[in-house]
């Protein structure tokens, strides 16, 4: 079975983004599923960035190492990724003499580690030294004179060099694709697709691809893998999209009837709002036009002055009666703490999409983490009912975005939808989402309300009907209030009103089925249970396959909703397991703490990662095996640059 990893790295701004995007499309056209993890720096230009692309006939869902091939477009990529090389490294012969200490953008800590390893192996700290080391290790090293091939591209395409310098990436990429066994036709089509509408760019890049293929054939024929057979999706039975996590959350929100999104730009959340901005107006089908009496659909996207304003504006819009959400990451969510409580006490349905990056404080803006779970659960003061759910992949993220909007209105409570940078920035191919099961549930709304209206009316289920200003008169206050929304601190009324709010949480806990709160993957009778959440899912599901191949029987318990927590279901699974191992992207093992809080069960073994990088498939396999061998309680994962 084809299961390969293609890594390509170079200077940020130098064309790695295009190269990665083209590679993803080429593998898709070849009929495969893809997953592209992006790593980049926060101080933007010239710093190292790379794509780790996983390719499989069935769902590709996590990064893995080693990579079958590493394409290093500059010297820094050679020094940064030589330990990632599984079989082949492509490098630029123009940088062979480059000394590592002459690379100003490279971190001194990485330099020190590499220096040490190169010294221990008796090679000099130059690109040539690394190539020598890789050859000693039996790896294939493929030197490509990128500059000369670029010149040839200019001559053959008739396009001046100055207009096509970025084709250097295409040359490096194409050599890699050729060696790994992808036909040039697929790369050509991918180039045309990615640069659609830019004929002046497409032509020289296609010329560059052919020159690179010819070069690889003439000079490294022995290094070529056999041509990869066409994947199962080469003639697609269903349309596939290639999307980032940010994109698909935005799509989910549109499908879920979002009308207003507020945000203040922050990594890695902002791209979702930028994507939504493209849909401030969109066409709708005839039947919908007739039914709704409108010609077009639309989402209002407002960039506010800060996150305090963003959430308060979203709350305001929800009071006015429309579906609203705001989107942010850790530092912005911290600013939203007070307003979260406000949304709680006035029972405003609002969705907060919270993208987790490396913290605390501004931490590592472009790096991954799962360290905001406890903040999502406990941010804000007072007893505050809320719903907290986390998505494990792009598909979950789409439907979760819709669910979050439904739950917010149904239970009139803030919903925190957690995602990670690893999902937000990863490019994945997904089948065009099936909307047949999607319903928009707006909860109790009174169309013709009495005037004035008792917004916080006591009801059996704690959920009061909503009516909106304009249709009637309603009162809202951040203070404790009576059924009319008027300030009130009477002790007995306080109990009634507080119980009413908390009752909604009980109802949500009852109504939301367990299978939406947690899901068990693999053989339910397997003695080992791996517990995880978020993007740990993809890496773990792949790891289960590999562990099974080695005779290790494990299942995966994927936690999805943390409030209300599926205590009984989780307890049942954990109590019937011989060995339980948690895998998390934070140092505290926060989800394990939540499991303990709601079930009393202490998960004895934890593999945790807090380097700011996502969990790789190989790390899960190794960690599980290591824990089984040694019975240690904690393993710290460190893979990835």
């Amino acid at each position: 079975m084809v299961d390969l990893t293609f890594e390509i790295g170079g200077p940020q701004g130098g064309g790695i983004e295009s190269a990665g995007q083209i590679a993803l499309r080429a593998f898709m056209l070849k009929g495969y599923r893809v997953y592209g993890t992006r790593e980049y720096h926060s101080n933007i230009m010239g710093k190292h960035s790379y794509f780790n692309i996983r390719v499989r006939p069935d769902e590709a869902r996590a990064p893995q190492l080693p990579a079958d091939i590493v394409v290093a477009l500059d010297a820094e990529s050679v020094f940064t990724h030589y330990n990632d090389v599984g079989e082949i490294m492509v490098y630029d012969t123009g940088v062979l003499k480059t000394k590592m200490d002459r690379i100003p953008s490279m971190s001194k800590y990485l330099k020190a580690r590499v220096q040490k390893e190169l010294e221990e192996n008796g090679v000099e700290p130059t690109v040539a030294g690394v190539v020598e080391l890789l050859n000693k290790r039996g790896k294939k090293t493929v030197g490509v004179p990128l500059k000369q091939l670029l010149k040839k591209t200019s001559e053959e395409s008739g396009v001046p060099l100055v207009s096509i310098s970025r084709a250097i990436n295409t040359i490096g990429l194409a050599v890699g694709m050729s060696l790994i066994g992808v036909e040039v036709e697929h790369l050509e089509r991918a180039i045309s697709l990615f640069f659609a509408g830019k004929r002046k760019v497409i032509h020289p890049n296609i010329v560059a691809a052919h020159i690179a293929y010819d070069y690889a054939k003439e000079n490294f024929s022995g290094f070529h893998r056999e041509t990869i057979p066409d994947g199962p999706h080469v003639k697609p039975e269903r349309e596939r999209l290639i999307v980032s996590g940010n994109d698909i959350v935005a799509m989910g929100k549109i499908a879920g009837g979002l009308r207003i999104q507020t945000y203040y730009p922050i990594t890695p959340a902002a791209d979702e709002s930028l994507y939504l901005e493209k849909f401030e107006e969109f066409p709708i089908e005839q039947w919908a036009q007739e039914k709704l009496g409108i010609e077009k659909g639309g989402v209002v996207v407002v960039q506010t002055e800060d996150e305090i304003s963003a959430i308060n504006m979203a709350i305001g819009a929800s009071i006015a009666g429309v579906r609203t959400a705001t989107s942010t990451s850790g530092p912005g969510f911290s600013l939203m703490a007070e307003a979260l409580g406000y949304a709680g006490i006035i029972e405003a349905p609002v969705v907060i999409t919270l993208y987790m990056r490396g913290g605390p404080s501004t931490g590592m803006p472009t790096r991954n983490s799962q360290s905001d779970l406890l903040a999502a659960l406990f941010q804000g003061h007072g007893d505050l009912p809320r719903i907290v759910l986390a998505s494990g992949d792009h598909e979950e993220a789409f439907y979760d975005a819709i669910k979050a909007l439904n739950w917010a209105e149904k239970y009139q409570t803030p919903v925190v939808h957690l995602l990670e940078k690893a999902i937000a920035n990863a490019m994945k191919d997904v089948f065009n989402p099936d909307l047949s099961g999607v319903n928009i549930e707006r909860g109790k709304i009174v169309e013709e309300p009495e005037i004035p209206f008792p917004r916080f009316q006591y009801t059996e289920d704690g959920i009061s009907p909503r009516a909106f200003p304009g249709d009637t008169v309603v009162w809202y206050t951040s203070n404790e209030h009576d059924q009319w929304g008027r300030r009130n601190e009477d002790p007995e009324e306080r109990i009634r009103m507080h119980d009413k709010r908390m009752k909604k949480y009980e109802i949500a806990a009852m109504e939301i089925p367990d299978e939406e709160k947690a899901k068990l993957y693999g053989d339910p009778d397997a003695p080992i249970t791996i517990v995880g959440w978020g993007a740990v899912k993809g890496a773990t599901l792949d790891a289960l396959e590999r562990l099974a191949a080695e005779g290790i029987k494990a299942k995966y318990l994927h936690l999805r909703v943390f409030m209300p927590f599926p205590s009984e279901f989780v307890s049942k699974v954990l109590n019937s397991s011989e060995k339980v191992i948690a895998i998390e992207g934070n140092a505290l093992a926060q989800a394990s703490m939540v499991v303990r809080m709601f079930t009393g069960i202490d998960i004895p073994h934890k593999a945790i990662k807090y380097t700011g990088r996502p969990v790789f498939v190989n790390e899960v396999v190794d960690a599980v095996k290591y824990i089984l061998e040694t019975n240690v309680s904690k393993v710290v994962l460190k893979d990835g640059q």
Partner: protein
Amino acid sequence: MGIGGARKCMNCKYWRPHRFYEGIGVCTVRWPWKMTFEEDSCQYWEPLIITNPGFYWCHTCKQRVGPEEFEEHLKKGHRLYSSVYLEPEVKEELYPVE
């Protein structure tokens, strides 16, 4: 002061190195600018001499240096240019970070 050696683009006053790719840059002597390799040469060559305090691009450190720093970089043998070449499309490749 300048970069010693033969009459190559890399030590010509009209040349600006590419921000990302080693060994290539643009010749600004005539519009439209032409991309050349650092070891190329042409009839318009003029020596790159940096003496006046000002802002320069240090291609060794891959950073802009100011009037107080530039001599320090020259002394260390760093490659200084009046400017650096950035493609207009660079923004398509950057990840905005906030």
